């Protein structure tokens, strides 16, 4: 690799920094007594997103130019103490670059769309700040060369997603939905926190190349199955897989543009990308692969079923997305990584478009009906009509209640923890009151 190609890859590695800097700049401007105008916000945001997109595009060009060999770009250490240093290590290869290019393109399209779609909305500036944080996060996640750096991007994606679900903050529904997304993300992200720790414990690095080399040489006892299972937990949360996938249909409370780019296009595919990155680990861990396939197939079945009884277009699309992502999980588990990569890119573009069209769904349906001159029958309706009425009712209830998965988790996990928390707090208060009474006597 010569000097020029090296510089081109460095430009790609700093691509996430542009949207992050723009978000910070807009955030500072909002604190002045005179708030920035919509045009100022759009100019700053689109400038940063264009720079970011061009950086990734140039790197993709350089990657193809120099023979499609994977590149590791190390920009130094973010911080160091003792033996440990947080490496700013990026990996540009046939998985990260095409997906990142797609992501940068979708974010660019979203910024143009939203500038008109959200014109004069009260949360205009907030939306752009969150979208920029998301852009920085997803690019960092996709270009990261280690699990540590990937986690940094993962957190930014999660944060912006949660805040965009609750974008319409004056309504109770979106706020509750945002909180549910947050709880799912935070609990499942523990998997992505523990997995790098296990890597550091065994081989003192969490870089993808380091893990791959350790697995190839087998000189270290790397607990591949445990690491892969923890990564699966994180992937399940972010990609709304069984049994923690209940948040995605609720996440449709956000603005159309964010639903398109986050839950149709990019955010929901982050789990699949994580599994693609964990491919060397999965190859060494048959049990984890079986778990990935099982989770994926169960999710695909359940989401497909629930989607067929969904009452609104956005939720129907959300279930369809979950179902397809489940299939991508199964592909990753079976080792079909190239198929999964292609599936991911194609699916994210298709869903992105579909989510953007959702507000016009009724108009589209009417136009179709007018053109065909008759009511179109959905294929799923015909399947339902073949069943007996009691069976239809039973299955309908099961599907509409999302197979009672969330209710079960609430009953056996969330409520007991909250009850214990309240009981401990109240006990402490009672003890203090008692001590005070004793003291006054």
């Amino acid at each position, binding site marked *: 690799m010569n000097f020029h190609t090296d510089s081109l890859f460095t430009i790609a590695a700093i691509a996430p920094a542009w949207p992050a800097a723009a978000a910070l700049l807009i955030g500072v401007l909002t604190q002045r007594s005179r708030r920035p105008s919509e045009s100022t916000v759009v100019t700053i945001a689109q400038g940063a997103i264009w720079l970011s997109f061009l950086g990734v595009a140039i790197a993709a060009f350089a990657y193809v130019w120099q023979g499609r060999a994977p590149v590791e770009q190390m920009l130094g250490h973010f911080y160091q103490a003792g033996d440990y240093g947080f490496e700013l290590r990026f990996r540009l290869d046939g998985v990260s670059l095409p997906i990142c290019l797609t992501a940068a393109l979708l974010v660019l399209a979203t910024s143009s769309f939203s500038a008109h779609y959200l014109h004069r909305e009260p949360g205009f500036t907030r939306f752009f700040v969150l979208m920029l944080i998301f852009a920085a996060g997803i690019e960092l996640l996709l270009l990261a060369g280690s699990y540590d750096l990937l986690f940094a991007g993962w957190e930014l994606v999660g944060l912006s997603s949660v805040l965009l679900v609750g974008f319409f903050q004056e309504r109770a529904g979106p706020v509750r939905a945002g909180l549910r997304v947050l709880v799912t993300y935070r609990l499942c992200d523990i998997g992505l*926190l523990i997995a790098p720790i296990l890597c550091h414990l065994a081989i003192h690095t969490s870089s993808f190349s380091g893990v791959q080399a350790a697995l190839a040489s087998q000189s270290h006892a790397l607990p591949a199955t445990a690491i892969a299972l923890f990564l699966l937990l994180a992937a399940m949360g972010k990609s709304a897989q069984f049994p923690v996938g209940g948040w995605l249909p609720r996440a449709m409370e956000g603005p159309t543009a964010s639903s398109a780019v986050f839950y149709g296009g990019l955010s929901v595919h982050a789990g699949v990308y994580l599994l693609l990155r964990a491919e060397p680990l999965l190859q060494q861990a048959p049990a984890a692969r079986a778990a990935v396939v099982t989770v994926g197939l169960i999710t695909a079945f359940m989401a497909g079923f629930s989607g067929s009884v969904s009452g609104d277009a956005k939720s129907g699309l959300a279930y369809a997305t979950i179902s397809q992502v489940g299939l991508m999980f199964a592909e990753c588990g079976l080792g079909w990584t190239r198929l999964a990569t292609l599936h991911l890119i194609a699916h994210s573009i298709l869903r992105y478009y579909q989510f953007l069209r959702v507000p016009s769904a009724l108009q589209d349906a009417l136009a179709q009906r007018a053109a065909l001159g008759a009511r179109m029958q959905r294929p799923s309706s015909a399947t339902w009509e073949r069943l007996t009425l009691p069976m239809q009712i039973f299955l309908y209830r099961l599907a509409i209640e999302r197979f009672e998965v969330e209710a079960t988790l609430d009953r056996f996990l969330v409520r007991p923890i909250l*009850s214990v928390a309240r009981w401990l707090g109240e006990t402490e208060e009672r003890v203090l009151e008692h001590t005070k009474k004793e003291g006054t006597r």
Partner: protein
Amino acid sequence: MSAPELLPLFVYLLPLLGAALLLLRPAMAAWHVRQVCVVTGLCTLLCTLLLAAGSSGSPWPGAWFGVDSLSALLLPITAAVGLGVLWSSPLGELTSRRASLSLVAFAGVLGTLVSLNVLWLAAFWTLSLLPLYFELRRTRSAALPSYRIMLWLCVVPIWGLVAALAWPGVLSPSAIAAGRFDVVALATAHAFTRPATELWLGAMLLVALLGRIGCFPLHVWMVPVSARGPAALSLVTYSTPLGIFLVPRLLLPLFPALCQHAFPLLLPLAVLSALYGAIVGLGQTDSRRALGYFWMSQQGFLLAGLSSLSVEGVSGALLHALATVVVRVGLVLSVLAIASRTGTSDVRLLGGLAQRAPRLSALFLVLVVAAIGIPGTAGFVSEDLIVQGLVQHHPVAAVLLLTTTALNGILLFRLHHSLFLGIKSPAPQAPRTDDFPDFLPRERWVTLSLIGLLLTGGLVSAPLLAVRGNVIRSLQAVGAVAPSSHESSHEHGGG
């Protein structure tokens, strides 16, 4: 005395002067009380900045007061946070008496930081705790009995150490020659003649540490003080990381052998504190109580980092001490701003405030994000270092602490959602929020400064860690902190 030797005196004399002025004028209007506090705080901050800028990292030999690598960074940040607290506290909190007590506590905290003499350190340590005690006693607070126990636990051991140092035969002749109460000299000499004395004194100081940081089960004073205590005074008193400061200042240098044995035993307690605070915090409906439990959880995190006795863990803990103080002060000041405007801190009676106060909501959210250690903030760096410090020898503790960070995230986001988002509480006793004012410029700039500190610590953490590197090296020199494997292999190869 030369100017560099005199300057540390002003660090605590200025707040004491301000306190005396307020005590002489008990009927002063709240607005003037705030002016006195702000002027005093600004002058003190200026002194600490001059001291930090002029610090060479090693104080004058034999000096009673001075600034070294440990206090160089802590001193201006503590002064800035104290100034922020006094400046942006609601006027209702700033009676002449309370403000003067806050300034006395402020002087005690800063005096402890600049003390290089055990006698003075004990005096200022005690001074930092007493004002809150007197205020709790005057108001007959429910927190008084537990705070009284904490006071004894914190004060008696440190005066016990002073008495032991003064007692004939306790110190070795070399330590007496170097300086009987000199912290720096005692650290470099083999201070104690008998191991048993060293063991008892060290154990007593450990108890003082656990009491001050509010480690489980000694945390019972912390939550009621946080929820019902006088806000500005309690923030000045116990939001400053004096308990943690005691570890690298006295415990590790004077009792390295004890720490090597005792700190790993403290690790389960630290993890329990972190988990307990996070879980119980989830069940709270009062925002101030919830923040009290969050603070307890963070203290457990800090103690876990110190207990690792590794370079990464101790570096992370020292940085986390600063980050959590800044975050907590910002969060508590925001909650106080809400409580002073609505008359309640009960989240069941609030909600939907973001529509009336978008800036308050946005800045609170940024503080929440910083508190849970999102990348780009100081909390991310410090939590990562603490976990890395624990990974090699205590992986289970590391995993449990990571669970704690997840729970704390849920706790704080839930708090933000309950206070600011959704619709206003329909409860009949809910306060009117139609004319709820947003952050005032004064409150906004204080909070923005705190956020600036957190972002600076997160984005350019290398210089902060480099300053703390000197502390780690001095602790390694006395054998209190294990050398990194790189250094040990280098030394091994060289030898």
